[in-house]
């Protein structure tokens, strides 16, 4: 940055690391399976998350078949429909997106980008993955237990989550809660690594204000997750007690199937507060890594420094902090004390300001850039469109009184899919096209990538943009069939059928992507160490893919920020972070 004194860094000697205390694998098992190398763990996380994510994708097809063509598919009964939406939602939010961004990208990128050899607690890091895998397996097991998985909705609201009117009340809900508890335990072990590594293991010269925004995003998201997941943890434990031990944390005196139940004295709203105290930061746990990654994609592929780096960092931190005081905007019509509405509407709309700043800075980065329309860049541009769209509809739902008619309608479904489904997944896909060459040493096939991009982006937009208008009309969510309702015209059913057809198309386009991932692993063009001519440290490793310990004998020394693209007077249009300043001639550059 401009005001970081540069003379001070010029004389920093390379770090001496003759005796690296790394765990060295001795066999195939400890190298590829029970590995303590963050890069291997990252790939394990990514593959597991993608596998369970594909399950969630198939669930969404079945759900869409029912919505688009009600009555046609007799094998989807009302119970199964609720099980489909519940499992789809929970898998996508927690087991796919959270795990992929933090466990996948976090593990791969943090040590490489900060110039460390590995995470600081490699053994705990390995455990994190294995507990996560266990959580996923337990979750998957719920498809096979008597009564099937829970159909309580991904929010698992009691009382219905544990009462007999809801599918999966016998086993499904217990298995779901157990899986969540395991996930949080596993995540915490990984999360401590991501935070401590970012704070303690940065290489020489890598000040906090020289970190790539990817690391800022993942780091801040991890801090949020470490503070937010405990609320879900206690909520899950208490709900499990209500179900198994007959406690009544969330259960008031009530009638179950015509009989007075054994419960009494608890508060259903307490669960909602715990759930959303976790659930709202969760949105940013997914969004902040996406913000960070997309900043780096845009900057690299537009060959231009990110505009307003410091503002971008502060926006990430401000959004992270504010995300803890907005949770009850999910509860405007929950029956909570109505005067909370003023406070939560105000905080929620304030959070729009730092978020808007990020959007402005992304598009201002494009201004007077040298925009290479590579596949990662296309995904980044599509992210901006979908995120702006989904973010703006958040201003409807966050503004308490506007939320009243829209809550629990398809408007909400469209909003959160656009903003925390489509937008972050576009970033994930762009990031895979961007970093796959570093992970495998080979480029992904570009024509296939472009094909995948256009179907995915335009398709996803066609699915979710019109869906908002079904919600405006008043169509409620979580309905197995809309049935007879005077206010729903036949055209709404036509739109539902259209959405289903597009959703299936987009779903199948992902198979092209999977094929590309597998094919390019063997047949892809050799990538070289730095195919995108990027500045950040992960592209400067001595080997590609990076070897165990990442850096060979000496750790890199960082002399400049992560965004020295197209520096006037420089020979190349990028200057790696670890390139020492040659002489005073580049003194005008931002360091």
């Amino acid at each position, binding site marked *: 940055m401009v005001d970081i004194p540069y003379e001070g860094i010029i004389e920093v000697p390379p770090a001496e690391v003759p005796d690296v205390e790394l765990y060295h694998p001795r066999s195939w098992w400890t190298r590829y399976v029970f590995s303590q190398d963050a890069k291997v763990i990252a790939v394990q996380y990514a593959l597991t998350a993608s596998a369970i994510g594909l399950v969630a994708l198939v669930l969404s097809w079945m759900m869409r078949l029912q919505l688009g063509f009600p009555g046609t598919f007799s094998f989807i009964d*009302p119970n199964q429909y609720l099980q489909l939406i519940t499992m789809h939602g929970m898998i996508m939010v927690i087991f796919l997106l959270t795990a992929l961004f933090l466990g996948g990208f976090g593990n791969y990128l943090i040590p490489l980008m900060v110039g460390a050899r590995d995470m600081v607690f490699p053994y705990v890091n390995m455990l994190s993955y294995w507990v996560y895998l266990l959580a996923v397996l337990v979750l998957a097991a719920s498809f096979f237990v008597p009564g099937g998985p829970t*159909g309580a909705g991904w929010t698992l*609201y009691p009382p*219905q989550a544990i*009462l007999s*009117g*809801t*599918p999966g009340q016998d086993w499904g809900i217990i298995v779901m809660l157990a899986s969540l508890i395991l996930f949080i335990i596993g995540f915490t072990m990984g999360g401590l690594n991501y935070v401590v590594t970012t704070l303690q293991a940065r290489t020489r010269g890598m000040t906090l204000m020289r970190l790539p925004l990817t690391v800022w995003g993942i780091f801040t998201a991890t801090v949020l997750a470490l503070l937010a997941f405990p609320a879900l943890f206690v909520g899950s434990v208490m709900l499990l007690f209500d179900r198994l031990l007959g406690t009544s944390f969330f259960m*008031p*005196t*009530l009638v179950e199937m015509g009989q*007075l139940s054994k419960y009494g004295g608890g508060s259903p*709203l307490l669960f909602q507060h715990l759930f959303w105290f976790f659930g709202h930061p969760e949105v940013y746990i997914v969004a902040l890594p996406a913000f960070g990654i997309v900043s780096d994609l845009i900057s690299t592929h*537009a060959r231009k420094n990110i505009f307003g*780096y410091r503002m971008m960092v502060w926006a990430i931190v401000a959004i992270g902090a504010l995300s803890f005081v907005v949770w009850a905007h999910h509860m405007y*019509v*929950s*029956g909570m004390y*109505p005067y909370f*509405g*003023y406070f939560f509407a*105000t905080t929620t709309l304030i959070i729009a*300001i730092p978020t808007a*700043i990020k*959007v402005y800075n992304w*598009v201002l980065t*494009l*201004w007077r*850039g*040298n*925009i290479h329309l590579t596949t990662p860049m296309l995904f980044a*541009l599509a992210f901006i*469109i979908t995120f*702006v769209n989904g973010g*703006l*509809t958040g*201003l409807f739902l966050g*503004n*308490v*009184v*506007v939320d*009243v*008619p829209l*809550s*629990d309608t398809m408007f909400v479904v469209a909003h959160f899919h656009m903003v925390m489904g489509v937008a972050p997944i576009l970033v994930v896909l762009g990031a895979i096209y961007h970093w796959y060459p570093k992970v495998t040493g080979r480029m992904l096939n570009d024509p296939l990538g472009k094909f995948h991009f256009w179907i995915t982006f335009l398709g996803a937009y066609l699915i979710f943009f*019109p869906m908002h*208008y079904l919600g*405006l*009309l*008043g169509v409620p969510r*979580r*309905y197995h069939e809309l049935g007879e309702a*005077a*206010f729903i*015209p036949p*055209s*709404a059913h036509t739109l539902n059928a259209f959405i289903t057809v597009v959703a299936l198309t987009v779903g199948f386009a992902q198979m092209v992507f999977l094929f590309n991932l597998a094919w390019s692993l063997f047949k892809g063009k050799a990538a070289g160490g730095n195919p995108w001519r990027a500045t950040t440290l992960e592209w400067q490793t001595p080997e590609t893919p990076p070897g165990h310990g990442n850096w060979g004998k000496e750790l890199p020394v960082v002399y400049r920020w992560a965004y020295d693209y*197209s520096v006037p007077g420089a020979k190349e*249009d990028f200057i790696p972070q670890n390139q020492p300043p040659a002489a005073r001639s580049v003194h005008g550059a*931002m360091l």
Partner: protein
Amino acid sequence: MAVALILLLVAIGSVVFHLLSPWWWTPIATNWSYIDHTINITFWITGFVFTAVIVFMAYCVFRFHHKEGRQAAYNPENKKLEWWLTIGTGIGVAAMLAPGLVVWHQFVTVPPDATEIEVMGQQWQWSFRLPGKDGQLGTTDVRNISSENPMGLNRDDPHGQDDVIIENGDLHLPIGKPVKVLLRSVDVLHDFYVPEFRAKMDMVPGMVTYFWIKPIRTGTFDVLCAELCGAAHYQMRAKVIVEEESEYHAWLEQQKTFAQLSGGSAVTKAAYKSGGG
């Protein structure tokens, strides 16, 4: 430039879709047109921002896409521009929030002349209760619920004896009279949702929640449940009929009171003071 053009078309297409969409909110039937106005303000502001950002982005892609010999500008930050954008955004946010909070204040402030009525949700049906001639609803307890007493009224509460009970039926409301709708549930969460009313609120076992409305047009409206309540959530339906006061009273005359239904104390014919309900 194909990519820039497609981005531009996404922005234009979205606006055109918005303007031509046959799917729009239902004709309003209550006093909450303020909510519709607030949504309209929000559409204008967010629509402007959406279009501006995407068009700017498309222009950048068109104007600055890579060509041989192009070099990007080096432009780390521009404090002044960033502050102006922040302030502009703040003004836009305030322009949406302020009317929103004003209308919310109206929404949570029930006028003193509103008649209290009660909606009770249970898996998977609606029941309604209207006060008798004393104008007051009797107290209830979920532990009292039985086949003769489906809404769980307290038998020794004199206010409850003349309450009109409509179990698993349709609700009638007189036009032009404000009503405070008290909401409760006996089992799980439900949500009393009539799209034309704009108002909705969850019903929570163990609590009484509320909203208030003033019906402004007659008609028959669908009641749906808007909070997932189990397997038959989508089938939990009823109707609300808003009608002229004379028709309303004619209907009310035919309804049974709690005392009549429970067959206990002296049968009291429901009679209603004018303006009550």
